[in-house]
């Protein structure tokens, strides 16, 4: 890791109270190409310090505006792949919510069940971590935040494996939990309470399958993204297949 220079240490001691908004700095570091991080952040800080001598809140406002504008100019260049990936996921979620709203005739509450969610997501993540490692979970999350080529083929293979295990586990857990529900319904059913025990209970027990399918879909897209980035890096075409 790069050690801080004497100038950087001096700066940290003397000007900690004069720092620009930290979140904006982190955002700029994330969006800007590596070669431009130093000059752009330095230029902004230099001007920010000049401005904050007159009015700190105005200087902060100016810095935020500059951050947004700079992100607007560079995000497609540096994070275009990530942006498209996020947009596709957001679109999928929005369309699903819309479909639930339409299907429920304005009452989409029937599609939300915390217990069913807990039966699917945590076990699926745990199975994926169990089948790979905690480090792979970190790598997978880092990949989702910044899916750029350059990692080694084995890392891509492990991340892809993580998403595959998580997606498949979610789907199988969905089937499994649904079967538990079906068994319970069948056990409680008799001629007198057929309508009341079959209708609503079946709808609830199918929710686990619904959540499992949704997670499987997202994991499938993520695994495909890993494969694409791996191929793009030109290092491991044969590893992922």
């Amino acid at each position, binding site marked *: 890791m790069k050690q801080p220079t004497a100038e950087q240490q001096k700066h940290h001691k003397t000007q900690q109270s004069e720092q620009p908004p930290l979140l904006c700095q982190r955002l700029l570091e994330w969006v800007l190409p590596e070669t431009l991080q130093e000059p752009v952040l330095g230029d902004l800080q230099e001007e920010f310090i000049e401005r904050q001598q007159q009015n700190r809140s105005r200087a902060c406002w100016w810095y935020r505006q500059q951050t947004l504008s*700079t992100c607007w100019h560079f995000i497609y260049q540096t994070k275009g792949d990530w942006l498209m990936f996020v947009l596709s996921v957001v679109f999928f979620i929005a369309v699903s919510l819309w479909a639930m709203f339409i299907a429920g005739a304005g009452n989409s509450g029937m599609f939300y069940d915390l217990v069913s969610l807990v039966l699917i997501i945590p076990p699926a993540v745990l199975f994926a971590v169990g089948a790979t490692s905690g480090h792979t979970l970190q790598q997978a999350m880092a990949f989702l935040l910044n899916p750029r080529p350059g990692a080694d083929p084995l890392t891509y293979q492990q991340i892809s494996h993580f998403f595959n295990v998580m997606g498949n586990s979610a789907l199988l857990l969905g089937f499994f939990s649904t079967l538990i529900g079906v068994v319970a319904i069948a056990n409680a059913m008799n001629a007198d309470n057929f309508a009341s025990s079959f209708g609503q209970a079946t709808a609830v027990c199918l929710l686990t399958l619904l959540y499992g399918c949704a997670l499987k879909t997202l994991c499938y897209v993520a695994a495909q993204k890993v494969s694409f980035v791996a191929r793009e890096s030109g290092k491991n075409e044969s590893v992922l297949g």
Partner: protein
Amino acid sequence: MAQDKFIGELEQMILLTVLQLKAEAYGSQIRQYLAEAVGRDLSIGALYTTLERLEQKGMLTGRLGEATAERGGRAKKYFAVTAEGQQALNRSKQALDQLWQGLVRQSGKQLNTVVNGSEVLL
């Protein structure tokens, strides 16, 4: 191709600013100079996008300078106009001069019609 050698208005402004600032031509100074001299208040992102483009076209060169405490220990990036950049500026100026002179040669009536009474500019 000859038509590739012409540059846009913002690119011309930035190249001229870099020439004027000489050894002090780095992002913040260029931005402030443009705002004061021509009232063009560019964001730092817009400025660096254009600077990068000019660098890729070979009209500017950039080098990292010294890091200072008021910049959070970060280095400045100084820019200089290359010979190719100066040629592109001259070419654009000549092209614009020629077009303006073409207008001057026309009659006053046509001139008023075309530029809406902007003889002052000529």
